[in-house]
């Protein structure tokens, strides 16, 4: 064997490998459309002349252009006056990681958030597929852990609190060590991405409901601001006033003492009765509160994919002879395969772990019970709106909170080794 030729060949091949692995400039970051919703709302109508793919692509291009007009790009955000967003904060959070002229760090979202939450806030960043639970998709404007009515938006301090504490039990870390100015900038950017996502959904709904196949989306100020944007902004600005009322704590409840302390015994007993009663808590959380009552429900973000996926596969069978419908459903199937995370069921919380995603303070547990958890199957036991009536009196909710807080420690010393996993063993 001619060794010098062999060496040359090996080196040449290695050089080809290195060259093939990565060349070219990185394009600037750009937002992505919500392709699942874009295809879902783009059903072809009978009598369409253009092929469906061309028509849908044009319509989506219009939506992308309008969104860029109203919200800018990931490097250069735009905040219309009507949104009430603080452009200075958005600029701190947006763009590539760099220092600005006074030495402040910019590009915070890209540094801390984008790899899970995605450049458009779609919860589908590069890391997202490996996480359980998936990162939050901001685009529908639904948030789980907040102190406002179920369907209301979170107040700024709810978002700040999530950034500060993280979400224990998930991959969302705590950003307690970031300076408050940076946390504020990130909160503002999340609200911006959420408003952008909701605007996009509103445009798709309008196009589906109001436009004929040959119409284009209007781009006048009256339409975009008054009709599309204003209802979205009103919900966000009304969040501060949509806080649920917190009832005062009954006198037989003392959260500074453990559940088996005499000060709390009566309250914990009442909470146990309410939890195990015919309300139905145990149907999902299980009679042992280990979260083993049911395992086949989805949260709203996954449910959209599951139900749409069922419709698409059902429709594909019967759409063989209709070219437009067939193209539409095949495109929808491709989007579900390549542009959405694989749906995961949401198991009910194991209450014996002492691990609460939304926070472990009594007021956090009260909020989860009062309104339920928006976006999750967890229902509320308080009223559904101001002036309503819940299935449990507001003050009684504190007894359920007391019972839940005692659950991880309930069998300490009683059953010995033969007991459910308690908080002291697992954190």
């Amino acid at each position, binding site marked *: 064997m001619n060794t010098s030729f062999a060496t040359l060949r090996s080196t040449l091949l290695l050089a080809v490998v290195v060259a093939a692995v990565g060349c070219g400039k990185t394009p600037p970051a750009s937002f992505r459309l919500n392709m699942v919703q874009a295809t879902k709302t783009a059903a072809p109508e009978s009598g369409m002349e253009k092929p469906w793919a061309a028509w849908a692509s044009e319509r989506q291009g219009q939506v992308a252009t309008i969104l860029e007009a109203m919200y800018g790009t990931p490097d250069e955000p735009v905040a219309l006056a009507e949104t009430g967003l603080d452009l200075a904060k958005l600029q701190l959070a947006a763009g590539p990681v760099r220092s600005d002229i006074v030495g402040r760090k910019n590009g915070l979202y890209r540094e801390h958030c984008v790899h899970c939450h995605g450049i458009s806030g779609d919860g589908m960043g590069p890391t997202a597929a490996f996480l359980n639970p998936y990162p939050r998709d901001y685009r529908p404007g639904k948030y789980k852990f907040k102190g406002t009515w179920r369907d209301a938006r979170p107040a700024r301090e709810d978002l700040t609190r999530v950034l500060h504490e993280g979400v224990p039990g998930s991959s969302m870390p705590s950003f307690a060590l970031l300076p408050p100015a940076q946390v504020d900038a990130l909160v503002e950017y999340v609200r911006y991405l959420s408003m952008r996502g909701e605007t996009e959904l509103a445009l798709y709904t309008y196009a589906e409901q109001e436009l004929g196949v040959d119409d284009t989306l209007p781009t006048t100020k009256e339409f975009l601001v008054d009709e599309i944007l204003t209802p979205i902004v009103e919900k966000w600005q009304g969040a501060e006033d949509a806080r649920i009322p917190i009832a005062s704590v009954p006198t037989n409840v003392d959260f500074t003492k453990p559940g088996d302390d005499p000060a709390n015994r009566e309250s914990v007993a009442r909470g146990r009765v309410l939890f195990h009663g015919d309300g139905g808590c145990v149907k999902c959380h299980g009679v042992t509160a280990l979260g083993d009552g049911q395992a086949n429900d989805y949260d709203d973000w996954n449910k959209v994919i599951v139900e749409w996926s069922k419709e698409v596969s059902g429709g594909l069978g019967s759409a063989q002879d209709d070219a437009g419908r067939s193209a539409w459903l095949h495109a929808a199937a491709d989007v579900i395969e390549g542009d959405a995370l694989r749906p995961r069921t949401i198991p009910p919380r194991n209450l014996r772990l002492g691990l609460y995603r939304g926070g472990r303070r009594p007021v956090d547990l009260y909020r989860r019970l009062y309104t339920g958890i928006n976006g999750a199957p967890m229902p509320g036991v308080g009223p559904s709106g101001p002036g309503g009536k819940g*299935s449990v009196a507001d003050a009684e909710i504190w007894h359920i909170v007391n019972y839940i807080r005692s659950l991880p420690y309930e069998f300490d010393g009683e059953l010995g080794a033969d007991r459910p996993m308690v908080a002291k063993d697992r954190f």
Partner: protein
Amino acid sequence: MTSFCHSCVPLACLVVATIAGCGPQRVSAPVADAAAASAIREGLASTAAVAATGGEAAVVGTGWASLKGRFVFAGDPGQPKPLAVDKDTEVCGKSAKLFDQSLRVDGSTKGLADVVVFVRKSSRVKNPVPDAPQVFDQKNCEFLAPVFTARVGQPIDVRNSDPVGHNTNIDGTSFNQLIPAGQGTTYKPDSEMGAPKTVTCNIHPWMKAYVIFRKDGYVAVSAADGSFTIPDLPAGEPLEFQVWHARATGSGGGVVLARPDLKWNPKGRFVITLQADEAKDLGTLEVPAGSIGT
């Protein structure tokens, strides 16, 4: 490295490096037109007084009329599928087996039930919002009304007549409440819906119904024989009606029919102007098999 294959390693590296970039690719999404976007943005930023769009002045008439019709299904509905009941089996499905109620066709008359007909925009309303609560109940682990309508501001008494707890979850609203056995709670919708939304129970996932809240209350749901009536409609103005069914294949759930006299549009809508005191009968509205999907 054996003398047999000196280039094995680099070759393998090349293959690996090429494959490493593969995987389900994200669908290519359309991009924005930056120039057009800046033009739109300038338009949005301008504080110039917007010229009142010359469009037709809203036509307002006087008097009231009513509309009725009957939906029939031209296709074969097949047998209703039984539902998978796997929770609280001592109660659920005990008094009667539970079937999928999404397509109810009357055997003798071929009438199509649960078709929702509602007005998309009206200028005036005859009757004020009633104070008396409407009842929305569930028994035997199914919702008693497959399609339920209410006016915005009208209280709804959401009841649970079962011996087990249910949670009633109205999609798109603030209402997802745990309702213990035998109890009820009141809900007052505060905004209207563009199309019916689902009502489900998270404890018993097979339970499903539809609900629509409208401000003007001009909604009707076809009965078991397919007939519907909407009384007290404003006369003298063009009214656009939306016809919806849970399994319709039209865009947004609209029911597509062949009724060129009504200019039935592919979104399941038609426009009609009624005369004062007219009781318009649309006759038999035949829904073709292709308009109802799986």
